[in-house]
């Protein structure tokens, strides 16, 4: 996406200013901000400018936010007096090597609508705080983009990281290209390119990224943005044996008859469960959705955009395609996987790629893979179960590209045929049915709450401990349903509980939220507590 705003034609001319061009670079440690500032110095000196640059590297260099400051002015007999750091409201050009760093530049007041050209790569490099959230902790990039665009006199933004990666170099090269291309500095293109050449390392790749970013910045206009919008992929019919495809088409036709709002999600869900097990399983999925649709229709779902069915189409599919050993083995032995990985790790055609998987099965997983009666029998004998755990509970590094281990995984994936008889499956099915029945029963009393119950399925994810923690959170959140079912704001509270559960791993936010719910709804008496909580 290329975004450029030009309030007036004059903006395209170089900054004249009071003889000093003030430039700040905001980068993240390791992005090559130092290289970029060296290049700018070179280009400026070649163009007859006196230039001064400083930075504060130190430990901030280690993956932290870093600022480089550059000031330049046409060289004369006398030395200029230049500042050592950028000041709010007094910067002509800001180069931000990442979207949130552009936001930080605006927050620090370095970008002003009267004079600052903001050149920013719009890609994201997530901060640790965004990554460790159990749910979705990614900051709202669109909001930042909108703000920074309006904060600058001129904004030149596109994904410069991708341009650099495609050219096999660092983002410093594409940032430099954008800086040159947007014309904010009164130097010839050759001066910029010579600076890169003088640097001497990885020159060709840097020049390639420079050139692409140069052109993008030069011709930055709205047309570009449209060209880059990802085309939404059309849902293609699956391939396979004719008989199966025919049966698929029958199922697809059944899904297509669902209310239009639910149709697309149902198709995706159907694909997921059929891929997980088989066509019969797809039928079970549609049967469940039929039941949901029926209740949904009876409880006024048509007027509510079929919210209940919509949520069910998504979460029933996810619940039915649970993450068991068979599924993992299946995903890891698909025909397309090896080629995909070779592409992702950028292995050249003549290279050999070896794959190591990190598996850590425990007794519990193995037990759940056994026929239900056998599994239950072992679970019922603690000493036997402990023995089993002792035998299998160990990290296993598995070379999935080797014939032996591939065959083992392939065999495990083949258990799919008998999956319905296995302990894990029976448990999952029982769980789905109980959860869904609860939601449908609730729908008749409190429709929005029923939708929220379905959405709570999101809490169950992961493997082993993580999965158990998710299940326990799910149970605890749904445990509050009886307290909420008679309340108009019940759905709201259940949503809050779910969001709290996603906040931290230990579940302390959930504990707090549950205490609040109990305080006002626990014995139906503490009305005051409710108002306080609000």
């Amino acid at each position, binding site marked *: 996406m290329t975004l450029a705003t030009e309030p007036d034609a004059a903006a395209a001319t170089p900054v004249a200013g009071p003889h000093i061009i003030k430039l700040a670079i905001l980068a993240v440690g390791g992005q090559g901000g130092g290289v970029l500032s060296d290049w700018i110095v070179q280009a400026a000196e070649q163009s007859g400018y006196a230039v001064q640059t400083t930075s504060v590297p130190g430990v901030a260099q280690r993956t932290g936010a870093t600022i480089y400051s550059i000031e330049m002015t046409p060289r004369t007999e006398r030395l200029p007096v230049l500042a050592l750091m950028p*000041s709010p409201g007094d910067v002509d050009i800001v180069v931000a090597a990442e979207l949130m760093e552009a936001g930080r530049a605006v927050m620090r*007041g370095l970008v002003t609508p009267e004079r600052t050209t903001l050149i920013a790569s719009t890609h994201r490099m997530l901060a640790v705080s965004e990554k460790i959230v159990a749910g979705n902790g990614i900051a709202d990039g669109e909001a930042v983009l909108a703000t920074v665009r309006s904060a600058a006199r001129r904004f030149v933004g596109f994904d410069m990281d991708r341009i650099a990666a495609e050219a096999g170099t660092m983002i410093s090269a594409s940032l430099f290209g954008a800086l040159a291309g947007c014309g904010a500095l009164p130097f010839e293109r050759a001066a910029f390119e010579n600076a890169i050449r003088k640097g001497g390392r990885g020159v060709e790749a840097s020049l390639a990224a420079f050139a692409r970013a140069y052109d993008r910045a030069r011709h930055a206009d709205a047309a570009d943005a449209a060209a880059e919008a990802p085309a939404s992929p059309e849902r*293609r019919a699956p391939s396979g044996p004719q008989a199966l495809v025919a049966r698929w088409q029958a199922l697809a036709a059944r899904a297509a008859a669902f209310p239009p709002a639910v149709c697309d*999600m149902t198709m995706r869900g159907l694909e997921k469960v059929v891929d997980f097990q088989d066509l019969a399983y797809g039928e079970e999925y549609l049967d469940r959705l039929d039941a949901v649709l029926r209740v949904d229709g009876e409880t006024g779902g048509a007027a509510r955009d079929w919210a209940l069915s919509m949520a069910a189409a998504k979460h029933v599919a996810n619940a039915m395609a649970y993450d068991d050993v068979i599924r993992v083995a299946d*995903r890891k032995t698909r*025909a397309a996987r090896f080629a995909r990985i070779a592409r992702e790790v950028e292995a050249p055609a003549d290279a050999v790629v070896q794959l*190591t998987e990190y598996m850590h099965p425990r007794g519990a997983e193995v037990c759940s893979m056994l026929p239900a009666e056998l599994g239950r029998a072992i679970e019922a004998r603690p000493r036997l179960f402990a023995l089993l755990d002792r035998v299998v509970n160990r990290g296993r590094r598995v070379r999935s590209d080797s014939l032996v281990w591939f065959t083992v995984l392939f065999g495990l994936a083949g258990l799919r045929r008998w999956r319905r008889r296995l302990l894990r499956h029976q448990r999952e099915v029982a769980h789905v049915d109980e959860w869904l029945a609860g939601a449908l029963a609730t729908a008749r009393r409190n429709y929005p709450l029923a939708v929220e119950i379905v959405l709570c399925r999101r809490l169950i994810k992961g493997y082993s401990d993580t999965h158990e923690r998710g299940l326990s959170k799910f149970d605890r959140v749904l445990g509050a349903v009886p307290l909420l079912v008679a309340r108009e704001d019940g759905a709201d509270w259940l949503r809050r509980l779910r969001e709290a559960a996603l906040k931290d791993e230990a579940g302390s936010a959930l504990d707090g939220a549950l205490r609040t719910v109990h305080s006002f709804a626990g014995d139906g008496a503490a009305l005051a507590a409710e108002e306080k909580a609000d």
Partner: protein
Amino acid sequence: MAERSFAKEVEKLRLGDGETFHGEGILAITKALLQCGVGYVGGYQGAPISHLMDVLADAQDILAELGVRYEANASEAAAAAMLAASVHYPIRGAVAFKSTVGTNVASDALANLASGGVTGGALVIVGEDYGEGSSIMQERSHAFAMKSQIWLLDPRPNLPSIVKAVEDGFALSEATNTPVMLEVRIRACHLYGAFETKANRRPPLTVREALDNPRRQTDRIVLPPAAFAHEQEKIATRWPAAQAFIKEHGLNEVFGPSAGRVGIILQGGMYNSVVRALQRLGLADLHGDTQVPLYVLNVTYPLVDDEIAAFCQDKDAVLVVEEGQPNYIEQAIGAMLHAGGGTTRVFGKTMLPMAGEYTGQVMLEGVGRFLRAHDPEMLAPEHRAPNRPRGPQPAPELAEIVPQRPPGFCTGCPERPIFAAMKLVEKEHGKRQVAADIGCHLFSILPPFEIGGTTMGYGLGPASNAAFHGGGGKRPISIIGDGGFWHNGLASSVGNAVYNEADGVILIVDNYYSAATGGQDVLSSRAENRSKSTNHPIADAVRGVGVKWVRQIDRTYDVGRMRDTLAEALTTPEKGPKVIVAASECMLNRQRREKPLMAAALKDGKRVVKPRFGVDEDVCTGDHACMRLSGCPSLSVKTLDDPLRDDPVAAIDQSCVGCGNCGEVADAAVLCPSFYRADVIRNPTRLERAMTRLRQRATRALAGWRQRRRLTFAGDAVA
């Protein structure tokens, strides 16, 4: 071998008379030292001085040609102690370190040095790590100069002024028999600029030559009764000599008109910021020609009374621009003028903030406030009475969205798995009292690890847990890096823990370098260093001082082993300190070392294995448990184009170096099977190629067999 090589740049140190040097402040200082005929140099690394030490290390040949001795000192105290060579011998010496932390460590030696005084010029270059980007507590070096009576230079931050300050410093030191401190702020150290060079000078007396003619002078040694005489001498002789020298040689500078109702007295280091404020107020031009008189203190201690009196004469008010607190200079000037019966009013911290960095905005506001109050006619109307608050409009909505980005462990850092293991131990054995030291391991204090409660000084991690070392239900843990260990930790932290039978766990992080300061070698470094003796194992040293329970882990990425060893240390009945040496090479330096070798091997057609990690996105469920045990920059999350999936899934980008942490953590913490390691083998052997072909044929046949018996959806179609 340091993180940054100056091998190319140091050639600039050879520039001769009348040539122009272009480069960083740090390199300019080194060049200035050589121009001054310095006889020996030393110091200890730490921002912003690290690069100076790296420059010196890379310049060893040039130094040797000139007969200059270079020593990488064990600590700042050791560096300051080295200046002892200038006590009896007329040899110029210079040492450099980070301040104020380094000055704290050095202050014992500095005080002794200052008491007896020096014969040869002794220069202490302190890199003032204050303000934005600083990694230490915020204090001033000024107090050290005052308490020991060491003269303090604070030159204007441009290369010619800094170079001149080095020359002036040596001369001042020799003229007054007093060591001189040269304060360079962090930005000045990394300042890129130019100056005209002079030819290097061989020291008139080299340390080698001095050895042949040993000297001593009993009255220069700090021992009563000489020590009492030293104090008198400082006041009666050295101080006035310094003031006379400063005045005579014009070390301080006056700019602007001689007349005026107001003036500004400023530290030299503040000059550019003050001029920028004046430029923005329309009172100075590009070259610093100012309408407001400026008295620039390139020497901030001692102050020259009559220069100040002369500057303040006929002025209604002066503004003292002095960064940091307490406001020693402002107080001194106020007292001086008051005692002299002057009527000039002195303003400083009433116009500018008492604490904190004097940024451009702070300076603009402070200088503007002062001028509006005391000489408003100077200002153009828009500055005299601004209609709207100055400065850009804040963007409050951003503050809520834009995440903080504190520094953290680098991609592939060997310390990450150590703290992942500690997290796992915490889950199993409960939270512990954890004391940290100084170094990269401090990043463990921040999310996602949030381990470590205090940091008391270099090499003092275990020592700072001493109060908890008397035993109790839950054994405490202290962490120390290899840098801190050799700086001070072996004696203060480990040795004394043995002596006091400390019941605690000491985790020594050995990453083969003093990594946080830029990858300088230390005693235990594994590299062969051409001028230093390395490869002295920490475990040997620890055993040598009497530790009985020592475990060496040579691959920190083995999270399971790390976790089990920690658990054992926490539970073993063994008495005395339990020491774990967790060793793996700093990844930043390892990459720097290996990348060129790998590229060369590839070019020569040799077999090269490059590991990288990946995530099967359809196996990852998006609970991000792995992130909470990692924080690696290359391990991130991405949102899938699939409406069935609410949460973004893990993704590993191209910057992955294949350290193994992801897989190890997934295994040790029993997280999930979505990680895989892909070893890309370039120029494989013929056998490997043949085996791979066979394997691929077989596995493809199997996968194909199944694919023909089921439905394949778009995402899984073979391209």
